[in-house]
């Protein structure tokens, strides 16, 4: 078999040659021989060099001989630069990094990973609490500028979406419950229902979900990018604790933003409920009376206290995931995802805990 290299061995020419001869070269046996004519070659680029090496590599593997005519010395030059033996692939996947693993290994790894996650989460939680306690004695240590910046970004900027969602939830809740209660002629009790529902459960939870998606993930992405850029390492070498410098302002901002946003979402929810009831010809005065009657200080404090805890959790999980990020861009994405998932799970668990607590305390 004969392969003739053209005068100008540029990428396009070699591509064709390579594809045309691939099968035939693969089929060569030990007894065969291959003539490689490189006499005319004026110019051999990187692709051409790779083609030459590929032929010699195949010859070593399959045992056929190569007779080479190389008046210009380009083949010799290539062989001198690249030793074909060094590019032999002993196994097909030798140069491919294995990504997937066995199912059982994966299971084990994710279990260990989950455990490490929890341990890490606790360690960061502890660090935050310690930093908070220290803050009590020296409030000037907090980076107040960061605190207000995050308060604005996580809070004020989220006001429109929180109010919109709150309004719609109130509207939907009122509609659905009014349909059932109407059968008994007591639609007016919809007011009690949405008032208690919003204050105790829906307000904090809806706001928590919004804050998680908007700000918890943003914390994780921001700190994660800092980690990738080695900014966190730089902080540490300056003797600044990332917990105090980065986590604390964000966690505190989230903790105080949550009740503020929750109040607004509850109020818009009540307005949404009013829309439905007014459309059912229930007087606004009666609606307000029922709201005032069913709203107790306990309910209000319970809901707001809960929302503060949620805010703390969201900030804490977001920052922890950010600080634990790996060193690559996709790790930042994974940190953001993990922060959202972690926050939602924790919010649900804590909400259940609060329900049990309220039951026993008789709230």
């Amino acid at each position, binding site marked *: 078999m004969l392969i003739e290299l053209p005068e100008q061995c540029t990428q396009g020419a070699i591509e064709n040659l390579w594809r045309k001869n691939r099968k035939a070269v693969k089929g060569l046996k030990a007894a065969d021989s291959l003539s490689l004519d490189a006499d005319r070659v004026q110019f051999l680029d990187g692709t051409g060099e*790779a083609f030459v090496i590929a032929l010699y*590599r195949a010859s070593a593997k399959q045992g056929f001989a190569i007779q080479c005519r190389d008046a210009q010395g380009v083949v010799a*030059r290539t062989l001198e630069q690249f030793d074909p033996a060094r590019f032999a692939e002993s196994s097909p996947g030798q140069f491919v990094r294995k990504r997937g693993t066995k199912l059982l290994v994966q299971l084990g790894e994710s279990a260990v990973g989950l455990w490490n996650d929890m341990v890490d989460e606790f360690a960061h939680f502890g660090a935050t609490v310690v930093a908070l306690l220290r803050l009590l004695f020296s409030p000037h240590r907090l980076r107040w500028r960061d605190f207000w910046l995050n308060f604005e970004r996580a809070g004020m900027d989220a006001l429109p979406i929180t109010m919109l969602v709150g309004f719609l939830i109130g509207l939907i809740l009122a509609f659905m419950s009014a349909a059932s209660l109407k059968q008994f002629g007591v639609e007016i009790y919809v007011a009690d229902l949405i008032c208690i529902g919003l204050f105790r459960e829906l307000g904090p939870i809806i706001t928590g979900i919004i804050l998680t998606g908007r700000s918890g993930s943003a914390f994780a992405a921001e700190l994660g990018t800092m980690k990738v850029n080695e900014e966190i390492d730089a902080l540490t070498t300056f003797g600044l604790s990332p917990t105090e410098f980065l986590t604390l302002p964000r966690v505190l901002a989230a903790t105080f933003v949550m009740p503020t946003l929750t109040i607004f979402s509850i109020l818009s929810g009540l307005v949404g409920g009013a829309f439905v009831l007014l459309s059912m010809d229930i007087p606004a005065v009666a609606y307000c009376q029922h709201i005032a009657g069913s709203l107790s200080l306990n309910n209000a404090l319970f809901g707001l206290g809960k929302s503060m805890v949620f805010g703390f959790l969201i900030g804490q999980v977001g920052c922890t995931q950010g600080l634990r990020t790996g060193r690559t861009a996709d790790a930042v994405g994974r940190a953001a995802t993990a922060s959202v998932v972690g926050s939602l799970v924790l919010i649900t668990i804590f909400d259940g805990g609060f329900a049990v607590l309220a039951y026993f305390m008789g709230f």
Partner: protein
Amino acid sequence: MNQAVITVTDLTAGYGKPILNHVSFEVREGEIFVILGGSGCGKSTILKHIIGLQPPLSGEIRILGDRIFGGDAAEAQRARRHFGVMYQSGALFGSMTLLENVCVPLESFTALPPDARRLLALMKLEQVGLKEYATFFPAEISGGMRKRAAIARSLALSPQILFLDEPSAGLDPITSAELDRLILRLRDEQRMTVVMVTHELPSIYAVADRCVMLDREAAGMIATGVPSELRDNPPSEKVRAFFNREPERKKTTDEVMK
């Protein structure tokens, strides 16, 4: 004399605000052209303009006759096919191994079969001494190795013109000398034109055919020519100081008093 592959005509470079004014030079086929100047004088900026990441504020840049800005999309695409770039920060894709990184341009610009692409990528990694690290992720290798991997990636398509932004920063003297050898070989054997930014004087004398020197205070170019000639007959005090590695001279108290 060889034909010009890059011509820069009366370029004003900058990001909205001009940083360099009235820059004109040309790079000829098969030469190693170095862009010199102090830190922050706009070397990376001018490189960004040439490779088409920033539009010129005024003036014109042509790569083998084609413009990236000022012409149509086909002309820009043609101009882009001619060159490979190594960015100052490396810019490797973090979620891919080194081998996969080098394969990226091969996958999008060639029709080579997968095993051919792999062999070609391995050979490029071998050229920069990183074949043993083919399956590593960028986060798992050192800064200098990342730089070399980025060079391997910029070489993957055997471009006619190669742009290197500080290729030898962060490399030890031996690796840096090997890099110089590689650059010379690319020019001699593959007729590649190399445009690079570097501060390393030994490397400049070893490889550079010609250079252009930029300056921040002058906001433009202050010299162009053959490095060793500029060193021996510096046209200005600044150029002399650069080649003699002198710190900028402060006026003495006496001079100030006068």
